[in-house]
């Protein structure tokens, strides 16, 4: 597969390590009242869609960027690639 890195351009996916569903960005607040329940959900349940899947790829053999990739799991076609740090900020993550 080819991942079109937002900074570096098209790169072979073999340079990357797959890190799973990008829902992992939405790490629950560990101080929430129902933190345990939320962490079970966060840690163990997945949408696992047959279709567009938003997922994390780590450019381990490249520039070490985490990317958020939208890829169709039935065709492997990739429709969007973003820097994970940008996406994380967009989802309200900061410090």
């Amino acid at each position, binding site marked *: *597969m*080819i991942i079109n890195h937002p900074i570096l351009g*098209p790169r*072979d996916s073999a340079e990357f*390590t797959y*890190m799973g569903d990008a829902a*992992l*960005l939405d*790490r629950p607040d560990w101080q929430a009242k129902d933190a345990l329940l939320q*962490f079970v959900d*966060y*840690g163990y349940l997945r949408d696992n869609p047959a279709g567009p899947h938003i997922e*994390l790829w*780590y450019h*381990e053999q490249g520039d*070490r*960027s*985490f990317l958020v990739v939208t890829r169709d799991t039935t*065709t*492997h*076609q*990739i429709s969007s690639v973003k*820097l*994970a*740090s*940008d996406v*994380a*900020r967009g989802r309200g*993550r*900061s*410090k």
Partner: protein
Amino acid sequence: MSQINRLGGGQIDRTKTLDFKFDGKSYQGHDGDTLASALLANNVRLMGRSFKYHRPRGVLTAGSEEPNAIMELRDGARQEPNTRATTAELFGGLTAKSQNKMGSLRFDFMAINDRFSNFLTAGFYYKTFMWPAAFWEKVYEPIIRKAAGLGSISFEDDPDDYDRGFLHCDLLIIGAGPSGLAAALTAGRAGAQVILADEDYTMGGRLNSERFSLVDQSGADWAAKTVAELTSLPNVRVMARTTILGAFDHGIYGALERVSDHLAVPEVGKPRQILWRIYSKRSLLCAGATERPIAFENNDRPGIMLAGAMRSYANRWAVTAAHNVAIFTNNDDGHKTAADLHAAGVSIAAVVDIRQDAPLSEEYEVIAGGQVVNSNGRLGLTSIEVSLPDGNTRALPCGALGMSGGWNPNIHLTSHHRGHPVWNEKIAAFCPPDNGPAGLSVAGAALGNFTTAEALASGACQANAILKDLGIKQNKVVLPLAEDAPANMTPFWYVKGCSRAWLDQQNDVTVKDVKLSHQENFISVEHLKRYTTLGMGTDQGKTSNMGGLAIMAELTGKTIPEVGTTIFRPPYTPTAIGAFAGRDRGTDFRPTRKTPSHTWAEEQGAVFVEVGMWLRAQWFPQAGETHWRQSVDREVLATRNSVGICDVTTLGKIDVQGADAATFLNKIYCNGFAKLLVGKTRYGLMLREDGIAMDDGTAARLAEDHFVVTTTTANAVSVFRHMEFARQCLWPDLDVQLISTTEAWAQYAVAGPNARKLLKKVVDPEFDLSNDAFSIYGLRQYHCVRWTKSAFV
């Protein structure tokens, strides 16, 4: 002259005579021959035995779709089972052996199976061999296993090297027949980065197999001239002997280049084969078409082959399988073979055409409305039986028979992404699916454009469409005028009433087996394939599948497209495991990581242990020590009583800097680091998100905003990955910078009561190693050396 079946003309170099051996017997061929053409030239028709019934087998095709003429090529460690004689280039000194036989090829004791074929029908083994239960592994299975399989291996290590590589292009053209060459000219002259790959050693495809001319030159000459021009273009890479074996995601193709297979031994330092990973923006499949046989009783004897292959042998290799040849056809193309062979001086026994309105010939007999219903000849064809339109049967002596049942486009790569082929009624064949691999277009015969003129035009046209998509200025190439005869064809799959009519010649699947499969409810094409093994041989059913589908359609009262087809998977042709592995074998299987003291440790005779690719000195045996415990006990005691050193460079080391470095470490470790004093080290435990321990190590604070973290050797990579995840995905606004320094710093642990004493010897006196100055978990930096003191090793 021994090559009694050699004709005039052809594209072989008669000035170069090559000696070779088949089953121990010496023969001669010429440069440009394949093993198959050279054997045919020497009147060798019997080349193998079938899988199940051990029926005599001769060559069926002239290409990589060959199911029958498969052999053990070469000797010793280079013995190569199941090699197609039809694609093996002849070289001086080549040796080949027939396979899957007991005794000699002519007298194969296993041919007894053929007598029992009535018992050995499709799937018979699922119904028996169950009693007594213990007999399966002990008795039945060993017999079956010994009988099964085709070629054998040498059990010696493959002595040749393999390599891998990466190529990029705007346009990958797969196949260098008329459509591929026209496309390459179009795109190449337009300046696009083009790769043109063909599995054959001579490019040109069918142009090399036909007699017609392109205006004033032969097809082969035009192909050679075109290839020469393409080779001269710096933006075109012409790759002969290169099979595109699979279409992978996003325009990536696997390609196998056979660098040295046409040589007795690879040149020193050169690989036998290279597996290229080709990154293409667009690709164009110009893989041509494969002719279909027609099933009739005993249609599997040596000498019975595809009519188009006969034409290739005659026109390209100047060879005929026999001097008296018959043709069985349902289309006009079969007549071309008769005409070409006749022109080459081969006598034509008759052309048997199932069509009442078959074109007639003044040169030889054409039996219109006839059918070949049986054949004779123990180890090779001697005659055929033909049913005439008037109901009578006539015997026709002949040494070879060409079958032409129409052509199937070579659409294999288009279904590598599981796209389902689409039926084309006009040519009665499956054509490329609409949902083939993104970026892959198809041209020429692979698209069902069977005439040369159509193929040339479609290649150029598709190339221009691709150039347009790529934003490259299109280019009008003037193509030579070429034959444009329509391929009149009446679909005809098998002769009615036959039972032992072979569909899959390698696996011995007959019309009868398809009928049984249907009777037992194995009707889905996938069930048919799996139950009968139709199309599961080394040829993957390139010549056999269609017949089975057509018969199943008839049995179920459905149309062929309703029955459907199994789809093709990579590789296009079987590919050496060694090639996929490339140079990653033996001690080069994976990189080795060595510590700074590795050479010293080797000199001390260390025994190494493998940890995370590192070689770590485990213990240092001394003279007289025979068991590892003796060495280890001695070393432990020495450390306990005095001092020991250990190269712990293999531990992961990560530099953590930034205003929020301490906050960051607080988040990823169980332990707190915010309050760690500068100059101190603290043990840290890292957990996974599910609360289970992930790694442990120490973090040393070099400055308010600077830590060095150590990890275990095995987890160095995954801990760094986890920290990057935390930094980029969880807390993207923390001011933290991470960089691995595992490689940049050597690291030694010094332990034991005399550790301080030892340090004093290597450190300049101004460095205070007293307990007050250098206490537990203390840390000092001195020149380019950092010292930490910890109770954790």
